[in-house]
């Protein structure tokens, strides 16, 4: 349950219930499929580069573990956002636009909202909500990546990230 709670917090999915009946874009179901079909990505190229920079600042490599860049977390999240409800898409689009402006004053200034203590009721502004959602999303996309699993396999015999997967019922 805790895993799911964390996953829900990412991308701001706490509001997904309100978006239950929102139409979602009909996109292919894997990143490879999307790439092969040459479909547009969620972020425009310029914004995607900024999004990837943000990921690198939030979740850099550490102590031999891959960071979001090595884990291709930005590419994965771009694919995920393309299928997400419209309120989540808006949060990320507007968040990146604000980050682009704030970044000119330096990374610390752009990310100062992340210095605020956690509250269960969530962040007070859309930009702070975006930053907190992006931090969790980049973290989870990184530690759940194949690159992370390969790096950790050399450090531990533990089967980190292995779960019991329910096959489709029919």
């Amino acid at each position, binding site marked *: 349950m805790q*895993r*799911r709670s964390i996953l829900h917090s990412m991308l701001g999915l706490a509001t*997904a219930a309100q978006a239950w009946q929102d139409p979602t874009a009909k996109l292919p179901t894997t990143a490879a499929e999307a790439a092969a079909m040459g479909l547009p990505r969620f972020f425009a190229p310029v914004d995607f580069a900024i999004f990837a920079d943000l990921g690198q600042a939030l979740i850099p490599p550490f102590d031999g*573990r891959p960071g979001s860049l090595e884990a291709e977390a930005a590419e994965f999240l771009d694919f995920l956002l393309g299928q997400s409800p419209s309120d989540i898409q808006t949060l990320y689009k507007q968040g990146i636009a604000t980050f682009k402006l704030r970044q000119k004053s330096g990374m610390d200034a752009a990310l100062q909202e992340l210095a605020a203590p956690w*509250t269960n009721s969530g962040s007070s502004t859309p930009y702070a909500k975006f930053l907190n959602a992006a*931090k*969790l999303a980049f973290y989870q996309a990184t530690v759940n*990546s194949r690159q992370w699993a390969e790096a950790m396999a050399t450090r531990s015999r533990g089967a980190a990230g292995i779960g019991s997967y329910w096959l489709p019922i029919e």
Partner: protein
Amino acid sequence: MKTEYDVLIIGSGASGGMAAHTLTKLGVKCIMLDAGALIDPEKQRVLKPVSDLPYRGFGKPGRFPHVTQASEFNANMWADEKENPYTYDSADPYYWVRIRLVGGKTLAWGRASWRLSNFEFKCKDHDGFGENWPIEYQDLAPFYDRVEPLFRVSGRTENLPQIPDGVFLPDESRDSLCVQRFLDSCRKQEVPTTKQRRSTGTLASSLNLLLPAALETGNLTLVPNAIVRELSKDPKSGKVTGAHFVDRVSKRDFHVKAKVVVLGASTLESTRILLNSNLANSSGILGHYLFDQFYVKNVVQAIVPEARGGKAPRNLMGGGGYIPRFRNLKTKSKDFIRGYSYDFGSGNSPGPQYFPAYGEKLWQQLADAQGTGFSLTTMGEVLPRFEHAVRINKTKTDAWGIPVLHIHQKYTANEFAMAKDSMDTAAQLCRESGFEILAKHAQMVPPGESIHELGTCRMGSDPKKSVLNQWNQTHDIKNLFVVDGGAFVSGGSQNPTLTILALTLRASEYLAEEMKKGNL
């Protein structure tokens, strides 16, 4: 289906499974309809790394907006929300969590197995609110005694009146040092504690503990993928005669005949069937008094400081326990009636959301706190209220053309006050244990999310104020029984499955006896 069965059981989870287990052993010929497929849980699951999943564990966006328990690993287990819709007022969301498979929610339940006490059965006598059950603890105790060994419940005898002791596999496990510190703090505050009481075993489901024995008698016909539209009734006698159902896959309609019908389709599905059948509602109570138990997940997330930086001495971390209700037993709280309980555990690693940092600093803080966590979750009693109710939404149907439920429930001042008290108390207990508090909050999850939905078809002595009598038999139709959580009059803060099993065992033996006497 031309055969007439003795008993039609609708649903195969805790209540349906227990009804089949009991009745078939008494020689009663039963047919069981379940809306879901029959699966072998061992063959249905494979081990996979999260990195091999298409969505890296995030799951397909929007697939389960109301099932926070769903992960990308178990997504295929939960009932499809698009095929099985329901409605609510947008201001008051309700999270209806369902599994449509043979075995029902017992395929995934938390296994916590607590008895109710007379603080619940005679709740009105204690504080004047609501109604008493038409039974008392002593009526149900012999049935709890028989259910616990069947479900291999482990626990520790404590002589706490609010959670009566049972027939347990003894839990002799030792407490870690941090848990001992916490227990000492509780003792000083006169807050009771105990070990968890849980059903044990690799799988503890109706599917492996109840249905095989029922099938072995040769008295049970199991029909998976059978979605009940409505019950049929003989207009002359007023009795129910069976059910109309649709095959989930082929969408063909069928009818099955039976002398008695037992509804165990889950709290809200059984009530939906009755409402769609326009039966058993002379009281006007059917669908009303919906309640559950509220949860405040991680009401306090703390850190055991001595464990920081991977420096925890041996036996410091690990394990947990349970705090049963302690409010409003001997004294009265000024802000709320009834009470709440906690699950607590240690040794978890607090997630990145708790740390106001990013980049290398975040990594350092995560590493420093790895395995240091101590957290509590509150489970609180919710007061049943007439206005919290379900009704049929005549404008919306499911994938099989069956009208769906509109659900209305929200938490009120009593629950909010209780949640706040639970946060303050948990924080105080952690502080007195020497733990550092990372975060605390009193925000309850939405109604329904605890998966402990109860009421809407409640028991009672007065047919004008209840749907069922003390034997889970409808006041209006004597050959119609409802044995799931719908029958509850109040729920305490204890997980309800053990009580559902005991009530069903009791009702099923009564049913078989009455059938033998020709009274049904």
